[in-house]
């Protein structure tokens, strides 16, 4: 390993933090629904990264962080509801007719939130990382260490489940 690429160098370590701390926190939040817990796990993961900075290559730091974080979940029990704020002013919705949703928009948002809540966590994290954090399938595949195809399948299932859940409510 070239010294200039060492995670032990503060500026490299900081770069890893700048690039990945938020997406990691959000990923953890979408999984456990507890912001504080998510941030605690982010903290612990970054401290572990620092302690093992000699063993982790810079380009592998992201994967290392996710692996450590996932392990942390084995010790976590509580799962809380993922609560997301949403823009009060709805974006200009397309002019397409939506006859089946003649409800108030906020009411729909609540239903959607509840439906997201009922998703299996694998589907929920993929859906939210894509819709909220604008992560591409490829990026998520790298982050979570699975194939892009697996991410696409999860997204596909998530959309179907959301539609059916909202409809049945």
């Amino acid at each position, binding site marked *: 390993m070239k010294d200039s690429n060492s995670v032990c160098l503060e500026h490299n370590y900081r770069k890893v933090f700048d690039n990945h701390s938020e997406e990691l926190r959000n990923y953890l939040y979408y999984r456990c629904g507890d912001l504080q817990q998510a941030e605690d796990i982010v903290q612990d993961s970054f401290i572990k990264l620092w302690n093992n900075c000699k063993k982790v290559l810079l380009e592998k730091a992201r994967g290392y962080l996710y692996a450590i974080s996932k392990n942390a979940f084995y010790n976590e029990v509580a799962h809380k509801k993922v609560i997301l704020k949403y823009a009060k002013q709805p974006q200009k919705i397309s002019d397409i007719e939506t006859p089946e949703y003649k409800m108030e928009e906020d009411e729909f948002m609540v239903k959607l939130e509840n439906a997201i809540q009922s998703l299996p966590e694998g589907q929920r994290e993929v859906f939210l990382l894509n819709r909220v954090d604008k992560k591409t399938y490829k990026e998520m595949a790298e982050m979570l260490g699975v194939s892009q195809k697996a991410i696409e*399948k999860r*997204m*596909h299932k998530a959309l179907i489940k959301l539609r059916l859940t909202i409809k049945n409510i």
Partner: protein
Amino acid sequence: MFEEKDDTILARWLAGTLTQEELAEFKNSKEFAEYQSIVTASNRFEKPAFNKEKLYTNIAAKRKNQKSTKVISLKSISYVIAVAASIVLIIGVFFNNITYKTGIGEQLAVTLPDNSKIQLNANSKLEHNRFFWNSNRNVSLNGEAYFIVEKGSTFNVKTNYGTVSVLGTEFNIRSRKNAYNLICYEGKVMFKQNKTEKTAVLTAGKSISIINNDFNEATTTKTSPSWLKGISTFDNTMLSDVLNELRAQYGITIKTNGVDLSQRFTGNFVHNDLETALKTVLVPMQIEYTINKNILLLNSSKE
């Protein structure tokens, strides 16, 4: 239903990678509006607030804190213990032996861990374990030594010829090149020959010599070996053996010039006067000799 066409088609729609035909077909399906609503609504979600600087400060503080109380992993502790144990073991293996050596004409008094006294004659070597005497009561001897063993103490004396097991006794072992002689002065010892595993038990006043692998038993009335007083005594001993002892006591080089070394010698020589010693050995054997510096030349006067 469109969504059942394959298991990733909705994901590809969301990523905008459907073909024109697929997209057209999807837009015509009755579920399309519902999916569109979900996607549109989900775009309104905002990322949860994230205070990056605060989090980084926390991490930096924790990183510093743990430096003073850095956790040493069990793995590295056990590594240190393993290294330390190895060093102790190496010391134990390589420095466990105590060796006593005497040079030409020297004698040395040795005390064993059990307080047994050993007198080491010239040109001899005695070894025993520094540690764990109780579990390994073995002494190895090359040369001649007189043992006064503490009562109730047992140990073994190993030589090239065999092992002597002792039990609170006094005895003398002479284990030289081509010569082995064991004399028991007090108590009882058992000798076990290396080659044949033959054993012999010696009581006080008995002695054995090994000649051609056979035990040659004899008796003595002495109570201690004469060499302790500076005199080597021989009884019906091969000349070669006597000459060896002269070498051990005086450090001389001997050129035998065809003299018959198998003839027997009974008598003694002193350790402190080479002229006298040579006279007492060689004159009765009718061997002419000259001594020049440290070189002894023999001439058999019989021939």
